[in-house]
């Protein structure tokens, strides 16, 4: 384990019944790093995410976040992370502001309205939609609301589940810019995705997952994005 690692998988293995969903995973994610776990359907991405969030338990090895074992100290882990589910389904009958207020209260975080408005501006959610019911929001707008919530929680670690799925290209660009900004500010970002192009644009490191095993790793060199073609070739090759 790296000394400055925020997220660490150490021989992480998860089994359900007689099926091995994650098989001896090993990786570390450092502070301020954007880490993308890339894999096809059924590769084990969501299981990895759920294990780090303390929603599933490891059978052997460990998944730790900020030094807390997610299997044995899920509450400690959950206090320090923000989670963006794949389809951000906040409450449709509440407005964006009401949703944020509700979830902040659930998290036990006390923020002023000014803080809330500042976060909504930062994620560039149109001001005229703040008080509209979320059922009228596009997926991108809901995602921005959820990111504003994550910002307000000041969580040092963000777990993102298929964050760009269903977003239009402009919204993906906006999202990637926001993720990069958060990482530059010191947040550690762990995303699971099957969007090769998006991951290459934003991630510092991409790790390929297939049938619960790590099958490849790509790292950004300086400011140059990871080579999409190389990742795509490796990803497609593993998923033939």
């Amino acid at each position, binding site marked *: 384990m790296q000394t400055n690692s925020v997220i660490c998988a150490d021989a992480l293995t998860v089994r359900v019944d007689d099926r091995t969903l994650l098989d001896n995973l090993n990786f570390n994610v450092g502070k301020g790093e954007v880490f993308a776990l890339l894999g096809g359907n059924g590769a084990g991405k969501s299981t990895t995410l*759920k294990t780090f*969030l*303390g*929603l599933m338990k490891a059978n052997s090895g460990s998944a730790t976040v900020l030094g807390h074992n997610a299997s044995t100290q899920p*509450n400690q882990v*959950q*206090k320090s*992370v*923000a*989670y963006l*589910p*794949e*389809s951000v*389904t*906040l*409450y449709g*009958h*509440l407005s964006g502001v009401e949703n944020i207020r*509700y*979830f902040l*209260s*659930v*998290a*036990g975080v006390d923020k002023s309205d000014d803080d809330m408005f500042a976060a909504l501006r930062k994620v560039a959610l149109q001001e005229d939609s703040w008080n509209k019911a979320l059922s009228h929001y596009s997926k991108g707008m809901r995602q921005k609301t959820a990111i504003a*919530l994550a910002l307000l*929680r000041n969580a040092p670690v963000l*777990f993102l589940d298929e964050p760009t799925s269903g977003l239009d290209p402009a919204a993906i660009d906006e999202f990637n810019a926001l993720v990069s900004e958060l990482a530059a500010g010191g947040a550690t970002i762990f995303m699971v995705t099957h969007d090769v192009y998006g991951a290459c644009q934003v991630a510092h490191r991409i790790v390929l997952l297939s049938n619960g095993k790590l099958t490849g790793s790509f790292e950004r060199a300086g400011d140059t994005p990871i080579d999409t073609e190389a990742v795509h070739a490796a990803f497609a090759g593993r998923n033939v």
Partner: protein
Amino acid sequence: MIRFSDIKREAGFVFGHRQIKLTLLVVFLLSSVSLWSGYAEMQEQQATIERLLKKDETERNAVLTHQSNYGMVAYYAFHLTYAPPSPLAFAAVGERDVFPWKHRIRMLALEGQIYESDTDNPELAFLGRFDFAFVTSVLLPLFIILLLYDLKAKEREARRFDLLNVTARNSHAIWSSRVLVTLVPLVLATLIPLIAFSVVNGASVASILTVCAIVIGSIIIWSAIVLAIGAAKRFAHFSATHLASIMLGVWLVTTVIVPVTGHTIINASVDTPEGGDIVLTQREAVNSAWDKPVEDTWQAFIETHPQWADKTDFDPQRDSSFNWKWYYAFQQVGDQTAKGLSESYQAATLRKDEIASYVALLSPSLLTQRLLTSAADTDVQAMVNYENNVREFHASLRKFYYHHLFEAPDFSTASFKQLPQFSPQVSKKQENTHED
């Protein structure tokens, strides 16, 4: 641990749903209407008792004015016996729908007079009356299911469950608070009308608290059932609709199938004489006495009333006339003949009730209904007590008239100042009410 802020937040959240407010309004209305229905019925019964008491007195005075011997007065005078509704009977009408709560009796053989009404069909009352006990024991569980069935499943289906759990300071606080802010208003919507009607009807604080505790207990049991099904690992991946159907299945089994099957099995397994048989046996004994040797009647009568053994100097054959003491003696013998059947009937009624109390352990709804009728003094025991109260009163009437028939003093209307008056027995529960 739940904080006040959790409750405040979830209260705002839960009451943001129009469906919740509508459901609570319906519960409030059902509770109020059922109580009003029971209250109106009990007012009607009380008015009937008062009207019959007046009629009783008027008729008896008329009999006394127009008759000049004790036998005739005993024959024509009616005596109202009744079980007055308790201050909480309006909430649980219970067995008052099945057992008679008033009898206008005469000095004739009694058992036939008691069981005449049993020839009606009490099965008609099987489904129960729409009273507060019905609402709380049968309908309220459905509202609990409606309010709680999708507590977690709804969040799972909307894919918010993980987000809520990961975001929450304490995920248990979310679910516990939601349950609390849903159930407390449900309890209030159910009980506020009850408390209002009870206070108006003069029920004691203790009895009101007892009924409130029973209702709250029932709500807790049903909520626990619903939450346990919702939280069962076995059903973790079931949809909210699927969970609701399982919960409705449990409701159907415990609220309908168990009580109906239990009722059928109890009736089949406990041998009970028919009320009609008691009436027939008693009437045959009375009617046949006209044709039997008078000694047969006297012999049977003297067995139970040896004090009149040397006052039986009458034989209709010999005297070619009619004598009231012989007439009432064979009425007495009629009751003695039917006594075995009558006792079996009562013992069977109590035995069935006892078995039903065990069946109720398998049915929270039946248990609630039984506890409410017990608290309201409208259960089987209360009605059996009333029957025995009638028998005691009839025995005192007989004692009064036998003295005047066998000792044969001159007729005097003044002697009727000693005529026993029926006074309904007040149960311990009602005594407490009056003490309060």
